Every structure is written in structure tokens, then in C-alpha cells.
């Protein structure tokens, strides 16, 4: 049990250490910026959590983020903020649905399908935009990413609502339970009459929905619809899930773990900035943390399995 909480303790330890070594860490400004920086990844990682629990993987979320953000911003130019937001989220959901349908109907490994759609969705974003960012966004739209409500960043509220919804989905709905079943043993789930294809498809659609939302936040942060946004985000999102105890073999993972995982990476980046670590080293440190986290988790499992 103590080892299961290891990511959580790591986060707390990291927090305490940063409080001690940097006087600028524990300030409203700094903590707000950590939240704003990690919100996009965090929300994507929530979607990635359910995908990984179901035994899948989604490499296309970085591209979905760009496509949804771009089309959302373009819609916003013409029809205003509300329609723009709706369009971004809808595009994300449809892209995820496309992944899910291809995985279940073509029966191709999700790694391959989403590797393909990673290129397809990114390519579509570039074709539609002719490679140019979309700028004509209403100025008030920046509130989504940069505004505050009740003294905390507005995105924190979005994140909390999304996390709560995801937690309820995983632990308290049939869909979540089936995601665990399919991920833990797809044959056993299939033999038990679980509608495997439907729920697998749904899982990718959910990931797409959250990624679409993240894309709109990213658009608000940048105040542009960028066809090149989100490159490499898919790996950061996967890392967050894995650091938080999700297993790429499926059947394991939790919302709380993923949040902790995403914030560990966020604090590492922030802390490195504050103490003036060479940014090139940040990548090395975060990479090492991923390997360490999974190593400890494997050790724990091996010991209890014997």
C-alpha cells in the first residue's frame, strides 16, 4: 500500500523541497503558472488514462489537439466563442471516434492505428490551414486559459470538473468497469459477453473529447489556432499516466494517479526553471523519473505477485 502511494509521496516531497530551495516557488503567481502550464497536458492525460486502462494507447492526441484547436479557432472567427468551443470539442470527439472505429473494425493494433492517425490528423490541420496559424480570435477568449475565478486559475476549475467526471466514469459506471475488464483480459471480457467493440470505441471517443477540450484551452493560451500545436504532447500524457501507476498492459490506472503524475512532471519543469537548471537537463531528469517510477511499480507488483 505504501508503495502504491509512492507517486503521491514523491509529489509531496518535490513540493516541500522546492519550497525550501526556492523562495519564489510558494507564491500565488508561480503556483498559478504551474497550474496553467500543466492543465492542457493534465486534461489530455485524463483521456489517456481510460485508453491505457482499456489496454490501448493513443499516439494521435497531440495531432487531435492541433486539429481541434485550429478548427475551433476558425469557427470562432466566424460564429463566436460558444460555437468555436463546441466545434473544437466536437472535432476532438470525432477524431477519437475515428480512432476507435478503425481499431475495432479493422482489428489493427491501437499503436499502429493511432500512429497512422497521428500523421493524418496533423496533416489535415496543415492542409486546412495551409500551414498558417489562425489569429482572429475574440480577445475575451483568453479568459479560458489566463483568467481566474475565486482567486485560482479558471483552468483549475475545468481540470477539477473533468477529473471528477473521469473518476466517476471509471469507478462508478458500467463503461469504466468494462474498460478495466477489457484492459485486464480482453478474452475473458469477450467470453463474458461484454460488448468489447462498443466500449473500446467509446473509450477513444472520450479521449478525443478531452483532447478537443485541451486543444481549445491551448488555443486560448496561445490566442491562435496553431496547426503545429501539441507536438510531443502524446508522450507527455502517456508518461503522466504511467508515472501515476497506469500499466501499458491494461487494467490498471486511476485519475488521481494521473493527476499526480502530471503534476510531478509539471513541478520538475517548474523547479528546474526556478533553480536555473539548464533546460536541456530538464528533459534528461523527466526521462529518468519516468523510468524510475515504472521500475518501482514493477518491483512492487513482482513482490506481491510471488
Amino acid at each position: 500500500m505504501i508503495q502504491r502511494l509512492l507517486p503521491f509521496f514523491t509529489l509531496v516531497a518535490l513540493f516541500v523541497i522546492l519550497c525550501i530551495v526556492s523562495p519564489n516557488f510558494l507564491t500565488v503567481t508561480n503556483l498559478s503558472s504551474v497550474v496553467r502550464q500543466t492543465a492542457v497536458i493534465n486534461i489530455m492525460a485524463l483521456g489517456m488514462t481510460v485508453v491505457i486502462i482499456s489496454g490501448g494507447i493513443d499516439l494521435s492526441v497531440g495531432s487531435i489537439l492541433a486539429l481541434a484547436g485550429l478548427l475551433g479557432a476558425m469557427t470562432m472567427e466566424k460564429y463566436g466563442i460558444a460555437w468555436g468551443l463546441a466545434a473544437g470539442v466536437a472535432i476532438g470527439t470525432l477524431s477519437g471516434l475515428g480512432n476507435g472505429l478503425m481499431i475495432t473494425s479493422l482489428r489493427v493494433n491501437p499503436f499502429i492505428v493511432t500512429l497512422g492517425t497521428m500523421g493524418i490528423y496533423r496533416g489535415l490541420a496543415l492542409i486546412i490551414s495551409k500551414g498558417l496559424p489562425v489569429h482572429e480570435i475574440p480577445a475575451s477568449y483568453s479568459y479560458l486559459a489566463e483568467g481566474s475565478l475565486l482567486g485560482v486559475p479558471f483552468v483549475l476549475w475545468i481540470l477539477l470538473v473533468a477529473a471528477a467526471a473521469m473518476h466517476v466514469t471509471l469507478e462508478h459506471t458500467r463503461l469504466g468497469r468494462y474498460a478495466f475488464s477489457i484492459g485486464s483480459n480482453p478474452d475473458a471480457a469477450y467470453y463474458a459477453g461484454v460488448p468489447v467493440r462498443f466500449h473500446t470505441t467509446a473509450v477513444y471517443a472520450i479521449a478525443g473529447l478531452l483532447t478537443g477540450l485541451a486543444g481549445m484551452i491551448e488555443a486560448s493560451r496561445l490566442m491562435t489556432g496553431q496547426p503545429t500545436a501539441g507536438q510531443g504532447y502524446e508522450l507527455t500524457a502517456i508518461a503522466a499516466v504511467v508515472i501515476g501507476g497506469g500499466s501499458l498492459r491494461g487494467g490498471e490506472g486511476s485519475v488521481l494517479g494521473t493527476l499526480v503524475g502530471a503534476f510531478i512532471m509539471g513541478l520538475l519543469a517548474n523547479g528546474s526553471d526556478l533553480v536555473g537548471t539548464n533546460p536541456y537537463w530538464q528533459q534528461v531528469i523527466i526521462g529518468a523519473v519516468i523510468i524510475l517510477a515504472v521500475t518501482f511499480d514493477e518491483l512492487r507488483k513482482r513482490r506481491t505477485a510471488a
Partner: protein
Amino acid sequence: MVQLKGIQKRFGGVVALRDGSLEVRRGEVHLLMGENGAGKSTLMKIVAGMLEPDGGEFLWQGRSVRFRNPAEAAAHGIAMVHQESLLAPHLSVAENIFLGHEPRRPLGWVNRREMLEHAARIIEEHRFPLQAEWRVERLSPAGKQMVEICRAIRQGSSLLIFDEPTSSLSEAETQEVFRIVRALRERNMGVIYITHRLEELRAIGDRVTVLRDGQTVHSGPLGEISADQIIRHMVGRELNAIYTRAALPPGEEVLAVRGLTRKPVLDDVTFSLRAGEIVGMAGLIGAGRTELCRALFGIDAIDRGEIRIRGRAVGIGSPQDAVREGLALIPEDRQRAGLATGLPVPYNLTMADLKAVCRGGFLKHAAESRITAEFSERLRIRMGPARQPAGRLSGGNQQKVAIAKWLLGQARVFLFDEPTRGIDVGAKMEVFQMMDELARRGAAILMVSSEMAELIQVADRILVMRQGRISGELPGRTTPEAIMRYAAFETGASAAGEAAR
């Protein structure tokens, strides 16, 4: 050659071995028996160098040893033939036999010709039904075991450990393994043989050691002990050696199958099941019994044939359809298809009928806990904390969970595929009782089993399959000889069928 005294091993807080003792001599087949969880596998893993003991004495050829890994054990001449094959499936038989010890040419090139010739020599010398160049993935479980035996012989092993070698083999294959084990004994090797099957005792063993709760409770020559006594040592309590079941008057016809065909594994299969009936299904491995279950359950498509449930023709295209029509399948391979071993027991119990504990797509956790408590009490499922993964349970308890997940729904036709494989005597009886109880509540049961004694004890009537067809039907109280006649030999009907083809 091997002497183990007071071996201890614990995993975390769990004591797997308290006092494991064993002595094996050259030129003997030493049986190791005990219920699941008694510590047999742990003890053998210590001998084979896969685990290190926490305490006790381990003498090899009279000298105290302590192996840190399997390679050290192998260097001393100890090899283990595993229940689940540890071979590289994409390589050939010869390549597997020489894996890691390939004959070399200068510059590190593998000398393929010498490897093939040497492998062929080993195969021929022991008359294994193998060819050196065959790919291992296409071999039967028995064939794979033989490759492992070849590998052990190649290493010059003098002690071979078999972990339930016949649990997944047909009668003919079992005989083949017995023949080879006897041949190894002739060559003055020592053999340790873990088994659950009492009827194998006389066929193969010289002496027997029984473990119970991590302790050696009996050790001695087989000639001086009866099967009943061994069972008593294993379970530590009196037990009806033979399960007897009072047959019920059969009710209405629940399942009728006519002309079911799936080329090339099923050929014109026709039979029916009545409510309250347990129908046994005998046959050799590859006769099409598992394939029949899979086809009925919608996992494999059928070419033609008709399935009727309560007189109504049904189309079953997927397990989802099958479940909707009231079918339940307890698959042969529990770990692979029967259970989500990484998930907690309650998740598994409600998997097949999650709607029963749902309202509008939301789970009712309280209802799930109540059902779990009810089942674990009623079926005596010994489970630890509720969040513990199902894979941590013993084989028997896992099987009970795999069966119990169908009790929540409205299943009326149960397909049990090898329900007692790899579970201990006590759990077997409990599985039989569960089947009996289901029959009493009006279910129709098809029980596929390779253990003829078991079929004879439990089934009301027995169907025998051979080469994808039903080759005979026998009353429940029949003899193994009668079953074998239909299972293994040409009968009039099927001989005519062959001729017509």
C-alpha cells in the same frame, strides 16, 4: 541424489514452505503430491534454482548446495520441464534444444548442420515423435514438453522435474510421456513428478512424497499406500474418495443442436441437453470438444447447422448473443479466458451480468459487495481483501469465481470445458457440487473432460467425440474402456463416414 530437509520459504507475510523435506534416488520416479498451494511448486523451484530457500538443508550428491539461478542448477544436472512451455515458439525443435548452447564454427557462426544432426540423434535415441526441423509453435503441448525433455537430455541432466506434465494431454499423449519417463528411469536418472491425478500413481511412480500446507506429511514407497490414504494425507481430513451424484429425472429439452458443422474441426454434430441433466463429453485432445463449445458460444463462426434453445431456433454470432440466449461458458484456459486475473474478485463476479448491479449505467457498489459476500460464503470462495486481484487466489478458488460469474445472470445452458483442470481434489468436489446444484435448479450442463473417471462419476450420460463428430453415446455408469473404444478407435459409423469422404 537429492536430499531436502526442513526447507523454508516465505513470500512477504505468506509462508509457502514451512518444513519441506524430500529425498530422491537415482533411477526412481518420485511423485510429489499435494493440493494447490501446498508448496509443491515452490519446493521444486528451489531445487531447480528458480528460488532461493530461506532456511533448511539442501544436499545434492551428498554435498550442501544453494543455487542462485536456474543456470547453476542446470550446471549441476538438474532440469525442469515446465507446465507452461518455456520455449521460443518461432524457432525449430533443434534450435530450441540447443538454445544458448549452439555448436559454433570459428568466428561465432552457428553450425546448423551439427546442431540438426545432434538433435536428430537425441530424438531418435529416445524415439520422440518429433523432427529436428519442425517449428515449435506448431507442436501440441505434449510435443513441446518433449522438446524440453530433449533439451534436458542434451544438457546431460541427471535429475528431471516434471510439473504436472499430463494435465493438458490426451490419453495417448499421456502414455507417450509415461513411456519416456520410464525410459529416463532405465537410464538411471532421477525423476520428480508433480501430479494431481491419482490414477497416474501406479502407472508411473516408485515412491511418493505428500505436501500439505508447506509441510511434508508423508514420504514412502507407493506399494505400501492406497490412493485413499494419499488423499487423506493431502487434504488432512476424511473425504469421500468417489463423488456420487443422484441423477434427476430429466426435464424438458433446453438445447438442441443439429448438424453443426465447422470445417475442418466439427462435422455434423447433433445432440441435445435436457434441464437437470449433466452430459459428459469425452474424447481425445483435438477431437473437437473445445471447438464445439466455442462454436456454440459464438466465438467461432459455423458453416451450417441449427441451434435451438427451448425449441426456438437461435442465431448466435458472438458471445454477447450467447449470453443473451442464456448460455454460459467456463473456458478450458482459466487464466487466459476465464478470469481477468489482474482485477479484484468482485469485478470478475459481476462481469457477465454487470447490468444486475447497475442503474442507468451507474454501478451500485453496495449491491456488488453484497453479491460478493453472498457468493463467497455460499461457494466457500476463500478470498482475501476485496481489492485483491483474482489471480492471487488458488486454482480451485479461481475456478469457482469463473463459474460464479454466470450464477448472477439467467444462464440456463452451461458449457464447462475441462472444469477441474489443475485444481486440487477438495476443490474438484466443490466444483461438482456447484454443477449438481445448477442441474437441480433446472440448468442443462455439458461437461467436457479428459478425465474419464470424473465423467463416469458425474455425468448422467456421456457423449464421445472423435475427429469432429459424435462417435458414440454411453450411459453415465459406463467404463473407461467403453469410452476409449469410441474415442480412439474406428467405429462402424465413422468408418463408413471416412470411406464415403
